[in-house]
């Protein structure tokens, strides 16, 4: 197990770090990567690494052995290097209030308990600590995990099979997940039993949730299952009305632009939005956006100028 990364590196401390520095680094990292706080599938492994590194480095004896013998220090029988061992035993001191059996020892509990519950004669915290350490370490279900799955609007629209790879306790794990047509942003897909590992025999693993994230799309905007798309029209199409094609994620559709449509007018195409596995699909909204030619030909300019002279229309004038 210890064949991987350097323990100091894992905790991000120098080899010369003091016990306090090591503890500080450990506590920060443990809070960050605890599987109940951090749902990233990679967090569980990281947390185990951090705990293992701390178990070794927090004890002066094992730390010294680790420094001497490196990752294989557990295989080195005691007394291999008398000098080192003598030095280690000489420096061995019981740390008052320190951790005696690794990370399972609760810290600074007692006061709060006896006070909070007004039980003077029984040290509840002791009883608890006892129960926890004495009881056979029963199965503990694993924590749930969450991973993001980014989809394009088109993928969400049509649904498809996705091959995903996530970090796992025994190296990367892969899944083929069928994403149903019509998933929405933020929707969670549950993979039961694929989350954090449980502890102890027969303990169930947690669940893995894939959270769908819809990638921003250059043309489509989504609001739940409704899809919005700009409908580019010429000034004369907008003024006179026209039948123009609108390109939705499900293909092209013809839409009638009513005469006298200004920019911003929305044309609704019922049920042409995101499909809904459990109900009616969303709508597709085509939002009119009037475009003018960036460069006018002589003739176009003439016609526009004439229109300008003839028309009394002033959109800035209050009605």
């Amino acid at each position, binding site marked *: 197990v210890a064949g991987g990364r350097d323990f100091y590196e894992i905790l991000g401390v120098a080899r010369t770090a003091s016990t306090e520095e090591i503890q500080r680094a450990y506590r920060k990292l*443990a809070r960050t990567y605890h599987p109940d706080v951090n749902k990233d599938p990679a967090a569980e492994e990281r947390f185990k690494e951090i705990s293992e590194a701390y178990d070794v480095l927090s004890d002066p004896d094992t730390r010294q052995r680790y420094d001497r013998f490196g990752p294989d220090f557990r295989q080195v029988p005691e007394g291999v290097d008398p000098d080192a061992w003598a030095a280690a035993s000489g420096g061995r001191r019981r740390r008052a209030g320190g951790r005696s059996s690794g990370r399972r020892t*609760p*810290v600074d*509990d007692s006061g709060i308990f006896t006070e909070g519950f007004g039980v003077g004669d029984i040290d509840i915290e002791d009883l608890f600590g006892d129960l926890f350490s004495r009881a056979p370490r*029963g199965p*503990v279900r694993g924590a749930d995990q969450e991973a993001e799955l980014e989809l394009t609007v088109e993928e969400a629209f049509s649904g498809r099979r996705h091959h995903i790879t996530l970090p796992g306790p025994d190296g990367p794990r892969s899944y083929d997940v069928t994403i149903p047509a019509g998933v929405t942003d*933020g929707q969670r897909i549950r993979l039961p039993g694929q989350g954090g590992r449980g502890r102890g025999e027969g303990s169930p693993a947690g669940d893995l949730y894939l959270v769908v994230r819809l990638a921003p799309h250059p043309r489509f905007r989504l609001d739940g299952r409704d899809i919005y798309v700009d409908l580019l029209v010429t000034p004369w199409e907008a003024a006179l009305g026209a039948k123009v094609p609108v390109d939705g994620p499900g293909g092209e559709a013809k839409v009638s632009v009513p005469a006298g449509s200004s920019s911003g007018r*929305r044309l*609704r*195409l019922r049920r042409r939005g995101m499909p809904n596995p459990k109900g009616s699909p969303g709508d597709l909204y085509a939002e009119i956006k009037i475009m003018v030619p960036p460069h006018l030909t002589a003739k176009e300019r003439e016609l526009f100028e004439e229109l300008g002279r003839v028309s009394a229309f002033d959109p800035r004038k209050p009605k």
Partner: protein
Amino acid sequence: VTTSLARPVCLSLDSFSRAAGLHPDLVTRLVALGLLDATYDAGGAPYFAPSELARVARIQRLREGLSINYAALGLVLDLLDRIDTLEAVLRGRRPTHGGNDRRWTRTA
């Protein structure tokens, strides 16, 4: 007229303790501390919803992994629950669309 008294799927103290791998005394304490929720039958015996198993596992993981004491655990559990709720709300929140103008025009 007979009405059936259907009790939701619940675990007795014994079966809950066995499933959680904990001593029943400890489970009782966790209830007394407000860390676990129990309902009581007419005889006063506690019953546990299966969802409490996930909670007790979380309690054990937090306690072992972060050395959190029982008093602080209550707070941590509450905060984690609140974060879950907030994240669920955020997930469900629709991305804002330019303007709240809901006008639309019926097409032929």
